[in-house]
């Protein structure tokens, strides 16, 4: 089980146990300041807490008030909405894979926006966790750093060290100060003195890596992200107890920080990855889909949606529902059709890590 979700689930008993008789003091009454009308000049768009759509399904919906087109449908069935009726009990649990389709520059320049709806009487709790991947391979460093010195104290050979300094392949900051240290575990330093022929332990330490520094993706870009003390995005819970619910997820544009769309676009074709998955999805804490789970009071799932975001290289193909991954060049400019890399071209095969190329 991935670590952030585990952290949330472990915390759920505490959340649920809070239904004691504690009476909280009243909050100050600031209701005079409440106003749902956000913007002068606005033309009838309700941006308050009133949902702009009917809450009839447990569903992910493409907003119809955007300035550009986005489609969400059941994966493999473009005519089917991404919508479920949660089971009344866990025995009636239902799950659906869904795909959000968006043209590549809309995703890169506008960001990622979609709506979640939960109908009345369906879910006691809703938990969601956004997608994230291992951008830099995380690994455990060697246990032993071995250094051999001659009678003058000069290093004549070393293992897992450079110039006497412990070295771990997973600490990328050795070569790039902006890159993370993804080396976990600890080591001891064994020094062999050729003059005496003796080997002694001469200290050691922690490799110092932080796995969360090596991950990226929508979970980290969420404007409402809550990080654990060690830097992991947490799954989020909405305690509904049967009340209907609407939420818009609005991730900022990628274009001011990244060169590719992979931070949001989690779609991949196994054919592009040796029949497997991108290397970044094999990380221990990777969450390959955007997950939305409807629970009963005891954390038994009643419904779940797994969302994949797919970006399209050509507007004409997007509109025709053709090929999202067209390659080649534009006939007029000679520039590539594929302007923003997705997983297919960012990390082909199953062993390439995207690292700083994202």
């Amino acid at each position, binding site marked *: 089980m991935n670590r952030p979700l585990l952290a949330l689930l472990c915390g759920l008993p505490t959340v649920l146990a809070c239904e004691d008789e504690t009476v909280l003091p009243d909050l100050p009454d600031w209701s005079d300041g409440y106003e749902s009308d956000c913007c002068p000049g606005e033309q009838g768009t309700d941006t308050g807490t009133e949902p702009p759509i009917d809450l009839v399904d447990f569903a992910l919906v493409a907003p119809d008030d955007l300035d550009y087109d986005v489609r969400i449908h059941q994966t493999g069935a473009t005519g089917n909405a991404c919508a479920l009726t949660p089971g009344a009990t866990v025995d009636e649990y239902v799950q659906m894979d869904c795909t959000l389709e968006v043209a590549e520059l809309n995703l890169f320049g506008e960001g990622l926006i979609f709506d979640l709806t939960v109908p009345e009487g369906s879910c006691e709790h809703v938990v969601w966790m956004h997608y994230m991947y291992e951008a830099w391979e995380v690994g455990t460093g060697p246990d032993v750093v071995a250094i051999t010195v001659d009678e003058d104290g000069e290093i004549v050979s070393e293992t897992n060290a450079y110039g006497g300094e412990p070295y771990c392949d997973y600490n990328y900051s050795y070569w790039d100060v902006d890159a993370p240290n993804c080396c976990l575990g600890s080591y001891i330093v064994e020094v062999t003195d050729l003059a005496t022929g003796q080997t002694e332990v001469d200290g050691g330490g922690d490799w110092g890596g932080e796995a969360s520094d090596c991950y990226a993706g929508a979970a980290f870009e969420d404007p409402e992200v809550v990080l654990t003390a060690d830097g992991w995005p947490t799954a989020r819970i909405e305690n509904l107890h049967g009340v209907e619910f609407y939420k818009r997820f609005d991730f900022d544009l990628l274009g*001011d920080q990244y060169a590719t769309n992979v931070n949001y676009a989690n779609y991949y074709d196994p054919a592009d990855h040796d029949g497997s998955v991108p290397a970044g999805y094999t990380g221990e804490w990777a969450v390959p889909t955007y997950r939305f789970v409807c629970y009963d009071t005891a954390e038994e799932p009643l419904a779940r949606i797994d969302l994949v975001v797919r970006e399209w290289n050509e507007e004409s193909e997007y509109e025709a529902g053709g090929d999202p991954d067209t390659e080649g060049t534009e006939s007029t400019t000679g520039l590539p059709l594929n302007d923003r890399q997705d997983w297919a071209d960012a990390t082909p095969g199953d062993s390439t890590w995207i690292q700083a190329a994202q």
Partner: protein
Amino acid sequence: MNHRLAAWAPFVALVGAGCNPVAADLVELSIAGGATVDVDTICDDPCLGDDVTAEISFEEHIAVDVEATIELRQYKVEYSFDAVDPAPEYFADTLAVSVTNGQVASFVVDLAAASQREYVDDVMDGELATGTATLTFAGYDFRDELIELTVDVPILFGRYDDSDAGTGTEVTL
């Protein structure tokens, strides 16, 4: 000074200041990283001044349970301007933010609604107005006691070009 009392003084101070920490002393709030926030007075959604990033950090403390949580339930925004007097009425909204001992949580707030934007625009006749927004957050600390936290944010109300609305950010193409 009574020597016996003097000998106890450090312990008393420890109990008073260290072992019974006040939530407000362990929390830091920042809005937009402390930068001046532009607030558009003539705009369609999204407006500058909406969805401003806020961050709350809960400093880890040995005397506070590791699962202790501080919750923010609502906030209000009060205004002061040099050139807008009286200032517009305050804006308020509900919130659902929680942060656990040792954690940092980010969230978004709106610094104004339509009435504040329109009011400043009318008074200033579209000119820029420099001021301060004082945000007061109310919620509950880890003892379920009411907590109020306040932070000041420099603001600049004005009519901003729609083409700049929303981000003001650079895109690498």
